[in-house]
């Protein structure tokens, strides 16, 4: 009995060695790419992954972008005769979640490109891991400026984004407040996240350059529930306007509680794209009336957005888009498809070789790419967006809110 199993084992080992020996010989392709190549066998799918927030209070942000990617995959069907497989991890919109998602994805060498992250805080820790693993990383909703700032320690090779840079969103919000509303005294609130802190910083700088005054900057706990203390401190500085580019959970509670703090009843509040969600309208109830939100200008999207994308989205997911970065996800996916088609080497038997560095280079070289969100051209540090920001005004029970500016 023992002998027979040993014989079997020996046979298997020999067979394995023989296979290994003739493996490379069967393929004429030799990978010379600096980061190596991904080999996709005949009939196997091309493996793409996402790292987005798909649970918790901010889930609409990530789920919406993922839906955008899935619409693109479904429309595309196949790339060079291969199906596309999408798997993913939840980055939880936090540094810890980003760490976990980044580590898991980085361990899978079959992944070609990663869509994500959703939140800049997660990007800060996940992107270095994914970049190290050789993937192309393309985010549909990271907006923190330092992620694509040349020379910044948070800018990593292989990272690109189709979302706008917050240098633009923050400045647009400041312009809206100062020029359109005519306020000169503003307070800001952030939640310690990379996204919120940078965005309010850009707002504050621009607002002060225009001649306004920032009365105070408060920070709150994104998981907190009682913000009266912070709002009372703000009320003591008598602002006319509060800019709070935070997320849904804290955002909806602050919107409610601001109405209950003496001195803030009439003060106008403004959030940013991180709060652009039906959950906010539900969570804030009647207090949402008059809340301003800045976000990518959905009205500026190309005609295919209305005619092709939206019907397809509704057909696949049974709902209208639930946040604002679905079209950015769609564009990101199509950019990756185009880049793969450009650089992949195909064997006669259908085996596909995708060189990693070449794929990154092709993505960075994207020029005048006709996407839903505009004509995308990537900078050498990965900013690909053709950004147009609009301001929306919220009303109870209504989503999406009314576009009012510009």
């Amino acid at each position, binding site marked *: 009995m023992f002998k027979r199993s040993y014989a079997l084992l020996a046979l298997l080992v020999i067979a394995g060695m023989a296979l290994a020996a003739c493996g490379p010989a069967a393929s004429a392709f030799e990978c010379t790419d600096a980061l190596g190549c991904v080999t996709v066998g005949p009939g196997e799918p091309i493996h793409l992954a996402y790292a987005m927030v798909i*649970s*918790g*209070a901010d*889930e*609409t942000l990530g789920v919406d972008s993922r839906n955008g990617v899935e619409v693109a995959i479904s429309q595309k069907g196949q790339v060079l005769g291969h199906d596309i497989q999408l798997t993913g991890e939840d980055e939880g919109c936090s540094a810890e979640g980003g760490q976990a998602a980044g580590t898991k994805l980085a361990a899978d060498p079959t992944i070609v490109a990663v869509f994500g992250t959703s939140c800049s805080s997660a990007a800060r820790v996940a992107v270095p891991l994914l970049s190290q693993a050789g993937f192309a990383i393309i985010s549909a909703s990271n907006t923190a400026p330092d992620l694509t700032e040349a020379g910044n320690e948070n800018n990593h090779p292989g990272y690109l984004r189709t979302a706008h840079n917050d240098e633009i969103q923050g400045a647009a919000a400041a312009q809206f407040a100062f020029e359109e509303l005519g306020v000169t005294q503003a307070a800001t609130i952030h939640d*310690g996240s990379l996204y919120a802190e940078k965005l309010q910083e850009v707002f504050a700088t621009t607002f002060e350059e225009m001649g306004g005054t920032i009365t105070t*900057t*408060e*920070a*709150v*706990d994104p*998981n*907190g*529930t*009682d*913000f*009266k*203390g*912070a709002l*009372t*401190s703000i*009320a*003591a500085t008598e602002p006319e306007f509060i800019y709070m580019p935070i997320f*849904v*959970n804290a955002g*909806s*509670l602050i919107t*409610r509680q601001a109405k*209950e*703090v*003496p001195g803030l009843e009439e003060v106008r509040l403004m959030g940013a794209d991180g709060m652009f969600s039906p*959950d906010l309208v*539900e*969570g804030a*109830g*009647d207090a949402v009336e008059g809340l301003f939100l800045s976000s990518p200008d959905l009205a500026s999207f190309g005609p295919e957005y209305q005619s092709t994308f939206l019907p397809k989205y509704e057909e696949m997911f049974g709902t209208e888009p639930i946040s604002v970065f679905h079209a950015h996800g769609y564009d990101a996916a199509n950019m990756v498809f185009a880049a793969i088609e450009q650089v992949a080497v195909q064997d006669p038997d259908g085996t596909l070789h995708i060189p990693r560095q070449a794929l990154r280079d092709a993505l960075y070289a994207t020029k005048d790419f006709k996407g839903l969100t505009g004509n995308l051209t990537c900078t050498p540090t990965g900013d690909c967006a053709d950004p147009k920001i609009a301001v929306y005004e919220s009303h109870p029970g209504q989503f999406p809110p009314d576009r009012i500016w510009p």
Partner: protein
Amino acid sequence: MLRNWTQRVTLTDIIVWALGILILIGVIWGSIVTLNTGKYSTSTWIDLTITGLALGGVYALIALGYTLVYGILRMINFAHSEVFMSGPFTATFAAQALIALGWWNTYPILSLVIVMLVSAAVSASIAILLERIAYRPLRHAPRLVPLITAIGASFFLQYTFRGLYGSGLKPFPDMEIFSGFWLIGTVRIFKTQAVAILGAFIMMLVLYTIVQRTKIGKAMRSVSEDKEVAALMGINVDRVITTTFALGGISAGIAGILYLLLFPVAHFFMGFFPGLKAFTAAVLGGIGNVPGAFLGAMVLGLLESVGPSLFLDGLGIPAPNQLKDAIAFTILVFILIFRPSGLLGERLTQAKA
């Protein structure tokens, strides 16, 4: 005498005392400077105090669940935060149903009672099931085992609710009769806050009476004293323990509705932080002690709400409100250094544990 003293005092003691004195000086200095600058008016301070009391009331009702169970089983029921979450989470659906019926604003008090009953019933059932399934089989296991089980049960419940109802926010509808505030002189009290403080206080009295004045309360106290002897005296220990969990669940369910009146958004993770705070409050007041849980919760609520503005503003620390938990927990450490068994805790001369 002096030699005796130097022998007893260790370096650690000196460091701990120095730390305590430093914190005390910081607190006093910060408060004096803040009050001197006059940045906040008297009515602001009263506002913050009332907010703190309302928050404290909710913490108190959750803390009761920890303290009752600890009193009887000497175990920390870490799944209690999910007992707290399950009731109000389910009650948001009941509230939607009441709105659909048109009762919500026509019979507001009745509606509030109904959602409270739903919430209390769900929380109590979850607590009883938890005890029956997760804790009773392990009652004679080493003490760490039920503790770990509790953490597991906590995750299980959280993700079950997430799986069943999704991870989005579930709004709790506003009640017209509780919107706005009462003006007493120049002091504004929001009606929701008044209801929360009052509700917590009444609930507290009811529970205290049950524990101190009724037959089942007497049984609970005797089981807490000594399980074996209580059993020999003819007390059905299992039933007493189940009742204890049920009481903790009911008070958590009521706390959940009061919490939703204050912060009207429910989600599957809503139990975690209030649960942690309430546990802290129970320890602060002296775990196992019912009035202690109430006192500890009020102190914690006040520290969180008044603390950042009072202590830190004066020290010139920017954006002090994000540090409210740091303040609350620093003071907690400070108090436990000098009173390790909590504010009203029994002196551990004859260790029960």
